[in-house]
């Protein structure tokens, strides 16, 4: 019998939500990886050969527009996984996926995960429930990007990232934040100073620290609360 699963895999909440014996069985196919910021995971149109479960880092899914601009459509951290749906049948990635914050990841070959999905209803249920969550998030963010202003979206995004990585210290440059939100870096610089003056954040080069979550939540659009309920609702069996 496979003994208890490696606790590091359970740092990912999706893997932790699997029945214990299921995770123990899967552990022989799971690998640990440390990836630094900016590591390419998938390019649009390339096969999803591996599935990634962040333990501590964060992956952004981006849609490439105007041939070069990558606008973020989802941030995935320890609550989720990237490429999960490919276990239901060979898939090409629609988005570009990149590690935005380096950290530890559990990975598994898509073929191995597909075999588990074929064998176990609990794995299929996990994939379907999580894919529903991602779809709901994409719908909410499409609405958010159309109607909410840059200050509100910035606050919402900072809160999300903090939740994803489980830390209020966000190793992010203003350049990167601007790219993710689809605004100019100058705009982020001015907004970061305004938020710092409000006492919501502190920023230094390459790092933003959330010092008052409540203040940040006051500035964030309602999408933060909506998505938090959606995304962090536990997947249970």
């Amino acid at each position: 019998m496979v003994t208890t699963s490696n606790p590091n895999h359970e740092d990912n909440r999706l893997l932790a939500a699997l029945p214990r014996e299921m995770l123990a069985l899967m552990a022989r196919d799971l690998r640990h990886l440390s990836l630094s910021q900016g590591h390419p995971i998938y390019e649009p149109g390339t096969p999803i050969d591996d599935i990634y479960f962040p333990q501590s880092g964060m992956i952004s899914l981006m849609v490439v527009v105007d041939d070069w601009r990558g606008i973020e459509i989802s941030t995935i951290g320890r609550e989720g996984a990237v490429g999960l749906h490919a276990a239901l049948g060979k898939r090409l990635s629609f988005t570009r996926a990149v590690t935005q914050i380096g950290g530890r990841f559990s990975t598994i070959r898509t073929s191995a995960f597909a075999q588990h999905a074929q064998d176990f209803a609990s794995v299929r249920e996990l994939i379907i429930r999580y894919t529903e969550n991602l779809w709901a998030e994409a719908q909410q963010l499409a609405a958010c990007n159309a109607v909410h202003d840059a200050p509100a979206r910035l606050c919402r995004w900072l809160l999300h990232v903090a939740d994803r990585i489980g830390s209020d210290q966000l190793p992010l440059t203003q350049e990167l934040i601007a790219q993710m939100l689809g605004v100019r870096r100058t705009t982020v610089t001015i907004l970061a100073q305004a938020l710092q003056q409000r006492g919501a954040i502190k920023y230094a080069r390459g790092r933003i620290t959330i010092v008052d979550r409540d203040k940040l939540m006051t500035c964030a659009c309602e999408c933060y609360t909506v998505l938090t309920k959606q995304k962090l609702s536990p997947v249970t069996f």
Partner: protein
Amino acid sequence: MPMYYFHLRNQDKFTDPDGTELVDVEAARAHALVVARELKFKSDTFMDEAWSRWFMHVQDGDGTELFSFPMSDVENGSNN
């Protein structure tokens, strides 16, 4: 390419220490307008003060002010 710096001011000053490289002053004017629209979007105020009290100031690499405009002159923008 020359550097341009974009500051938002009333009695508070939100300064842009890093600047942006742009081809010429016309490009700086266009950049200032985009940033102003991104900041304003559909809001009436910034830091609880009416936009009419805020000004965008643009400087070159030597710190010389090139132009400024009141934020209330900028039409409310859209995202991106």
